[in-house]
């Protein structure tokens, strides 16, 4: 049941991605509507698949790479819907859905069996810590997409080649503003995720901080976003510089998520 729901959501996100590519080359009202419809249907199945797995596992399904990638994608789609509702930015779908699809695809590649959770980790912190972390990451992911849109649009305006996506991409000002707001949203979530993680580590292992690779990389990511916010507020680093930093920040998020788990071993190795 859970597997079927997962496959269905993967299929719909795939469809949304295909339409997204069409949208980039020859967009119309119809294609952007279709992306949203496919995304909504995919999201419904996706939500159901997470609930189904929650019921079986007895805790938030987020303890394997399969589950975590899927939950990450789910959070991104959630924030995507919020942005669609709040800002209605043209072409946001094409800059979001491919990432969602890639995360779901990698989720589908990782082993899917539900592993028995070690007793140390059975705690209410699991849900709180991971939800905060992934919602924060999702905000950064959307900021990443928006930043790419910004850089493309800025490139058009600077080089004065006004073909391509120029007409349909939103204005620089709104892209910069949304990028900033997403980081403002993501940053406290990441901060809280790190704090709750430390509290949980203390209760599980007896110490707040052990310099394990996940902790180190989360801290690096955190510092990058501190830099984004600080430079903006003091030196007025907005626009292109903010967009580039936002992209760097998200690459660090991705490495913290995939790189640390796959390349470096540590206490977080279960996820």
């Amino acid at each position, binding site marked *: 049941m859970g597997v079927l729901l997962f496959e269905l959501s993967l299929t719909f996100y795939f469809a949304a991605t295909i339409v997204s590519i069409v949208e980039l080359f020859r967009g119309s009202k119809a294609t952007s509507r279709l992306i949203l419809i496919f995304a909504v249907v995919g999201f419904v199945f996706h939500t159901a698949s997470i609930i189904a797995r929650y019921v079986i596992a007895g805790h938030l399904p987020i303890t394997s790479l399969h589950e975590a990638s899927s939950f990450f994608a789910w959070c991104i789609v959630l924030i995507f819907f919020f942005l669609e509702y709040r800002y209605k930015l043209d072409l946001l779908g094409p800059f979001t859905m491919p990432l969602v699809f890639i995360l779901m695809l990698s989720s589908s590649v990782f082993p899917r069996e539900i592993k028995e959770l070690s007793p140390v980790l059975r705690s209410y912190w699991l849900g709180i810590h991971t939800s905060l972390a992934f919602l924060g990451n999702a905000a950064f992911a959307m900021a990443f997409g928006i930043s790419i849109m910004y850089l493309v649009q800025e490139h058009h*305006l600077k080089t004065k080649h*006004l073909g391509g996506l120029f007409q349909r991409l939103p204005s620089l000002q709104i892209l910069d503003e949304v990028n900033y707001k997403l980081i403002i949203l993501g940053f406290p979530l990441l901060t809280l995720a790190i704090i709750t993680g430390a509290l949980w580590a203390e209760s599980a292992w007896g110490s707040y901080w052990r310099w394990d690779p996940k902790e180190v990389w989360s801290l690096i990511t955190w510092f990058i976003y501190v830099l984004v916010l600080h430079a903006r507020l003091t030196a*007025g*680093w907005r*626009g292109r510089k903010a967009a580039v930093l936002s992209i760097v920040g998200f690459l660090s998020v991705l490495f913290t998520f995939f790189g640390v788990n796959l390349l470096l071993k540590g206490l977080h190795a279960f996820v």
Partner: protein
Amino acid sequence: MKIIVIGLNHKTADVDVREKLAFNGEKLEQGLLRIRQLPGIDEAIVLSTCNRVEIYSNVKDPEKAFDAIKTFLSDFHDLDSAALEKSLYFLQDRDAVKHVFRVGSSLDSMVVGEPQILGQLKDAFEFALEKKTTGILLNRLMKKTISVAKRVRTDTKIAENAVSISFAAVELARKIFTDLSEKSFMLLGAGEMAELAAKHMMSFGVKGVTVANRTFERGCELAKEFNGRAIKFEDFLKELAHSDIVICSTGAPAYLLHKEEMQRVMKERRQRPVFIIDISVPRNIDPGINDLDNVYLYDVDDLQGVVETNVMERKKEAGKAEDIVAEEIASFEKWISSLDSVPTVVALRNKAEDIKREELERLMNKFPELGEKERKAIEYMANAITNKLIHPPTVALREDVEDKDALIAAVRKLYALNGNDEKQ
């Protein structure tokens, strides 16, 4: 009953010929009424703009009408008829309809997609309506033209991209800033181009205009016009820190603003984006400042480049618009053929027969006890009623009367003969 077009436009005639043929002011009314009174001409509309003079007409015999109108034009405007003939085009039937649709949809314009022509066409039509020089055919043609033009506008991107320098500047500003109404705006120099661009900006809600001009008085004048304020020319650099959009057009022989200065300004602005349009020749602003973050500098050539790309885009879209026109011509022709009296007589008769048969069937089913004799009598009566009712309109339709088109249209409307393809 034939639609014809006689006219000339920017492609067939130079401006000095177009000028002479123009129907300005009182000439329009006189000309229109006199054309309508020419023999064999049942309806007329005169469209006179700076790029074209055209006469749309419903005539009995196109060849005779062409000659009559041509002679009238050369008399009325005192022009040599041989010279005039070289510039004029004569179109009839399908070609004429196609031409009118294309004109209304701005496919025949000098700047394809420009929106004014539709308004001018509407005005010409309304004027003719007021003077009662049109009838069913031209009224229908004009209404159709307006709806075709609207369809072209919504279904293609023909009018989407700016094709003038000042509109291109506004378009760019709207891709840099979300809401122009909260942006401040500075005019550096008070040239005509700058004024025009400023007007466009204002129409998109830009507020807070500041004018910096070498002659302070002229600056004040312009500031007054835009409800803004004037500053001394020397102070423009200070003002730059508070201006989001700058249009520069001074006659200065060298750069007024260098990269290093702009760098300091940007620091003071805390890197808030600024859009600078330099339409002065020679340029007044160091092109190098475009390399600074959050500074967008466009000079006249850049804007010209934008306009050229947009013109190309419009040409692509024009192809789609031509397809729409072709489609609509077909539907218009269908309507014209419905105006012929024979199909109308047939349709009227069929309709009467249908009603009679239905009602008879209903009656017979209700009273199955009726005998053969009674049935015959009832049928006879029904036939007599329908025949007597449709006899007068049938006769009227077969007569050769002055305003036959109107009569046919009236009959079709009164008896609801138009079916689904004819709903207005």
